[in-house]
């Protein structure tokens, strides 16, 4: 069945325009920049690709990305971690507590520890006792807010500035870093030139936008954000370039085969859940550091959004990061001044981007795909012209709709770890 389908696909579809995968990626980025730049010039809204916007986008993307990475490592080791939203909640309460008592760095550590405890508790249920992973995750998600509320009522009530829904605030804030010479960071008290900033101000087609992106990525980056970005590279290296990482992935793909080669599947799954919980908790801590305090419901479903980015990114770190960036940008622009204009300009960018995609699909003779994408493109054009003041609630919904569309269109191409979610015990086939 699938073989014949592949054959027909091969007959009618043209090969990709660029055969090298690396150059295809470069071309994709170039087209992306061109689309954003065109949208910026037509809508006359330079904030669409300004360094400030990208800076906020990075800041909002990091917790989502950490949640995605958390889900990724859990599922690679064989555990479906629906409970990571709860682990993020655990991260926020511990980060709020330690941040208030000991300062921002301890907030980060506290968040990691809090999340890790959640991950280990869940692993006891799923790995040792073989409880269904969805069931255990749901249980964790129900418990965590309760624990957070109990701890908050014990710790923060009666303290100046604190309440059951909010911590008194972090003592001190984490430093930040601006790249010298490129983005005008200071070097030993000397104000270096701001090259990206200069290019950004020129407004040149594509160059100003790329410079805005680069400046946004290198200006006023707090250390927790930088650490999180570094963790993406670290985790990718760990999972694909170290023996331990191989064993961990092995436990998610073929636990019985891993066991027969002497890998302790249970140990790997515990390790996966400990790291997963730690990353989720760190995501919570980043939220606390951004708001400078713990607040109830601070997580607001970002754990689930992280799971969405992981699926969107096909269980790969780069894809997860791209998904988190996209969602971070979409929700980050709502924090800028005049978010309505920005969302409006983003509709235009989406419309142009989808139109280009439709043209490419038509070139590859995928008629149904091109038609579907064209419909979405026209919808986005309509939204650009008709919706002058986009509703906040509908903007909030965007990432979830995008994910739903992505899994609907790409469900056949997605490949989760083969035996994730199946409890495994020694002696199983």
């Amino acid at each position, binding site marked *: 069945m699938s073989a014949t389908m592949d054959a027909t696909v091969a007959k009618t579809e043209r090969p990709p325009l660029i055969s090298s995968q690396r150059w295809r990626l470069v071309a994709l980025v170039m087209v992306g920049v061109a689309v954003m730049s065109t949208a910026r010039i037509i809508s006359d809204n330079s904030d669409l690709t300004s360094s400030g916007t990208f800076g906020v986008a990075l800041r909002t993307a990091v917790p989502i990305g950490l949640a995605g990475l958390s889900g990724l490592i859990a599922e690679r080791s064989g555990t479906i971690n*629906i409970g990571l939203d709860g682990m993020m909640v655990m991260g926020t309460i511990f980060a709020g507590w330690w941040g208030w008592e000991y300062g921002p760095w301890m907030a980060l550590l506290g968040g990691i520890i809090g999340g890790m405890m959640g991950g280990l*508790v869940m692993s*006891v*249920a799923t790995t040792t*006792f*073989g*409880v*269904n992973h*969805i*069931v*255990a995750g*749901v*249980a*964790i*998600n*129900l*418990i*965590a*807010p*309760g*624990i957070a*509320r*109990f701890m*908050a*009522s*014990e710790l923060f*009530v009666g303290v100046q500035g604190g309440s*059951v829904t909010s911590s008194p605030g972090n003592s001190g804030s984490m430093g930040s870093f601006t790249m010298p010479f490129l983005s005008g960071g200071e070097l030993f008290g000397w104000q270096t030139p701001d090259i990206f900033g200069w290019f950004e101000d020129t407004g040149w087609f594509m160059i100003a936008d790329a410079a805005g992106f680069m400046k946004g990525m290198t200006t006023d980056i707090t250390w927790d954000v930088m650490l999180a970005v570094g963790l993406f590279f670290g985790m990718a290296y760990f999972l694909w370039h170290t023996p331990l990482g191989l064993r961990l992935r092995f436990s998610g793909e073929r636990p019985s085969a891993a066991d027969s080669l002497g890998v302790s599947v249970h140990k790997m799954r515990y390790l996966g859940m400990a790291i997963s919980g730690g990353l989720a908790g760190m995501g919570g801590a980043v939220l606390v550091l951004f708001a400078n305090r713990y607040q109830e419901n601070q997580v607001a*479903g970002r754990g*689930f*959004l992280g*799971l*969405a980015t992981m*699926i969107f990114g096909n269980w790969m770190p780069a894809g997860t990061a791209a998904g988190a960036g996209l969602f971070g940008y979409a929700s980050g622009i709502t924090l800028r001044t005049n978010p309505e204009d920005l969302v409006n300009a983003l509709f235009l960018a989406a419309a142009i981007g989808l139109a280009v995609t439709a043209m490419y699909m038509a070139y590859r003779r995928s008629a149904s795909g091109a038609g579907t994408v064209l419909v979405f493109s026209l919808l986005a054009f309509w939204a650009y012209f008709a919706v002058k003041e986009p*509703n906040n*609630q*509908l903007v*909030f*919904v965007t990432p*979830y*709709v995008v*994910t*739903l569309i992505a*899994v*609907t269109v790409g*469900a*056949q191409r997605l490949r989760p770890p083969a035996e994730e979610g199946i409890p495994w*015990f020694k*002696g*199983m*086939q």
Partner: protein
Amino acid sequence: MFERIWRAAIAPLVAAAAAILISSIALLISGNNPVDAFVEMWKTIDSTAAVIDIINTAVPLYISGIAVAIGFKMNLFNIGSNGQYILAALVAGWAGAEVSLPPVLHVLFVFAVAMTVGGSWALIAAVLNVTRNVNVVVATIMLNYIAVGLSAFLLSEYFRDSENGGLVAQTKVMPESARIPPLDPIFEFFGFDFGERVDLLGFLPVAIALGVAYYVLLNRSLFGYELKLSGMNADAAQSAGVNPKRMVLITLFMSGAVAGMIGLPFLLADSDFYKYGDAFPVTLGFTGLGIALLGRNSPVGVAAAAIVWATIEVATRRLGSLGIPPEIGKILQGSFLLAAVIAYEVVRRRNDAAAAEAAAAATREERTPPPTPEAAPIGATS
């Protein structure tokens, strides 16, 4: 008989003991006396008013538990019941206040709207699953947040009650004809008086009817048989002629339709509400997931779970007067749930192993020569 009851009760009892232990530790760490706390909790629920309060609290929880239990029975995880009921309650609240109908018909109309909206929203996930192979858990989670955003949008833009100055985001109050009266008069007729402070809300019979319907569906209908069969062994069900796509579509629609009713006790029977608005409870769907897990998806078990959950909720309300945070109730509920799912799994594996051992012993007796001793455990675990 006694052994059966004991078998069913052992896991929840162990879980309850674990939950009490964990909460006591939490109380001790935070410098409170656990004994004082549990004594106060007992005192709080030791009155007729409190019992009525518990029943009223348990009713929406029960509906919420049954909604997801239907799907759980065939390993179909409808995580999106929360979105389904919020959207359903909003649309039903708006539609119910817009139309004017005779009393009973009006209530039925609101039910029809709520169940259609909830079912249809769940059906989106089902259609994506059967046509595009999208994971049901992922689809329902996404639809949850889309429903929350969409209902906030609909409420603020279209369904808001504009006559109140439009300042508060809420739908119009339900007219008299759409309300279900409290049950107090019936009980007063038989000589029970609950007092002025509390009303036994009129939604209780609906919840009981739902439980009976669920029981009949599961145990006395072909569909229920197919549902359980699909849950136990999807491959066996398919080779026995059960169409898995049809099962997903119907089951998720039913699950969503029941989820659509979660908000109705507030809309139709609770004089504090009669409308969808700011104070409307918005996390009952998630709680229902826990209730269904606790009650092991059985009609009676889910009822017991809903009552336990509601009891903890009511019992902890007045702990604040002792300086003990009432939030200990959340710890109690949560640790009970987690301990229970673990205990159920352990007991299930024990029973499975015992059954497999018995079967293996029976085969050994029939056969000569006896098989190798190791053969039985491997067959038992696979």
